[in-house]
């Protein structure tokens, strides 16, 4: 176990360090200007300076992403459950979901920001929820339709009720698909929460900090916030993976 952990952790860490050293050498030896590519040491210095602000921005964007993710995923899962049960809901939703899937968030963000006013977090959460909805809905519905004919026959032979069939066969069978959707959605949630901040509104999140730092030509600082954004994405992705692992074998 311990050596396995080492084998999984050490190589990527070594690669990361090598890349950082190479980056530093490239900037120093190549005399590259900070507005093109700041040195890792410069970014690290900035990281130290802005850490308190970075932390609050991290939490602000993280909260938006999390709330949007949960709301969008819950809505998507319940809609998928309905659609798998009632074919008219399926017929109603399929074109709507196709429409939602092609809505560009860059087009939607300014509209929603205006709608809810510049001091509200709501537009960002709504955007995250919309973006999250599509992959979770599509994957969950696919999972719910994946019931093997032999399982269907078996449950019919047992004269099981619809609810029993859902609880013992359909929903547990769909769980891996739900998590495929959630894994995609967790990264999308962070990305869209950050992008949503590019279009005005409150100046409290990572996205706003990145744009304002870049606008002030403070490139190492902008990069420090980008680093924060990467960490946020990794946290979300790892958390969904961990939940998936915990749930997958225990469900009945």
């Amino acid at each position: 176990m311990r050596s396995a952990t080492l084998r999984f952790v050490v190589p990527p860490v070594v690669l990361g360090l090598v890349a950082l050293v190479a980056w530093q050498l490239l900037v120093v030896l190549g005399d590259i200007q900070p507005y093109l590519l700041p040195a890792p040491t410069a970014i690290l210095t900035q990281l130290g300076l802005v850490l308190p602000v970075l932390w609050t921005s991290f939490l602000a964007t993280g909260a938006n992403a999390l709330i949007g993710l949960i709301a969008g995923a819950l809505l998507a899962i319940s809609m998928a459950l309905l659609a798998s049960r009632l074919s008219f809901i399926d017929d109603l939703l399929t074109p709507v979901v196709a429409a939602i899937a092609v809505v560009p968030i860059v087009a939607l963000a300014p509209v929603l920001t205006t709608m809810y006013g510049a001091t509200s977090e709501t537009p960002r959460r709504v955007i995250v929820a919309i973006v999250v909805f599509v992959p979770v809905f599509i994957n969950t519905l696919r999972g719910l339709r994946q019931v093997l004919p032999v399982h269907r026959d078996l449950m019919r032979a047992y004269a099981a009720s619809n609810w029993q069939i859902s609880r013992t066969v359909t929903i547990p069978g769909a769980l891996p698909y739900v998590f495929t959707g959630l894994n995609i959605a967790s990264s999308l949630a962070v990305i869209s929460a950050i992008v949503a901040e590019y279009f005005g509104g409150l100046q409290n999140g990572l996205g706003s900090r990145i744009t304002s730092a870049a606008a002030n030509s403070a490139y190492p600082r902008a990069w420090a916030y980008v680093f924060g954004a990467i960490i946020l994405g990794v946290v979300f992705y790892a958390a969904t993976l961990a939940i998936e692992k915990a749930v997958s074998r225990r469900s009945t």
Partner: protein
Amino acid sequence: MSHAIAVQVSHVTKIFPVKKGDGVTALAEVSLTVNAGEFVSLIGPSGCGKSTLLRLIADLDQPTSGAVTVFGKPAHQARLDQDYGIAFQSAGLLPWRTVEANIELPLQLHRVPAATRRARVAELMSLVGLSDFAANFPDQLSGGMQQRVAIARSLAESPELLLMDEPFGALDEMTRERMQTELVRICAETGAAVVFVTHSIPEAVFLSDRVVVMSPRPGRIREIVDVALGEKRGEMLREEESFFEGVTRVREALHGAPTEARPDNAVRGVDLR
């Protein structure tokens, strides 16, 4: 249930509708009686409707005309009353449930109290020789072991009738023979009637009291061969004269003529139309 007749199939026709034309006649005017405690195999080439017949008895499909009764009740009522246990060619275990939980499934669905459930599951696991694998998941078992779990599950509610659709079809020959011996033992212990679909002549002869030989297009019963090789069916039976004689009789019934007259490779009943 003191019914002397487990399954009564009377003049059953099953036509599957197709997009164009009159539909496919899977079964035409089939009648069959299975007595309580009797082991009956359905054998025939693909397309002879043997699986369809089994599905009609299980009320997984409905006949186009004719009637199916199970222990004197319409098949539909018998299904609602859980009068039969069923096993399919693929074990059909739920992969996210342990062996124990899979066997427990029908008991749980029918709200059997937890303590009774546990005792029954333990009993069934020792019956199929899987007590050591209670906590394993299906993907950790071999195909033969999975099929044993499926058989234990079909026996969970001590049914007086077992419906089996090629349950050993996907197993290798050695596992298959061992499973057949086990099935004979289990049937002797439980006294259940069995309707067993197979395409293997030796399997049908080894297991059955009677072998129902069917022919395709449309599915019909060609002949019913009495084999009944007696109570003590062990591995030795496979080398006895009576076994070979049974195999020959079923084969001849399948081909509709003595096999000596035909070349060896004409073993397929499909060739006869």
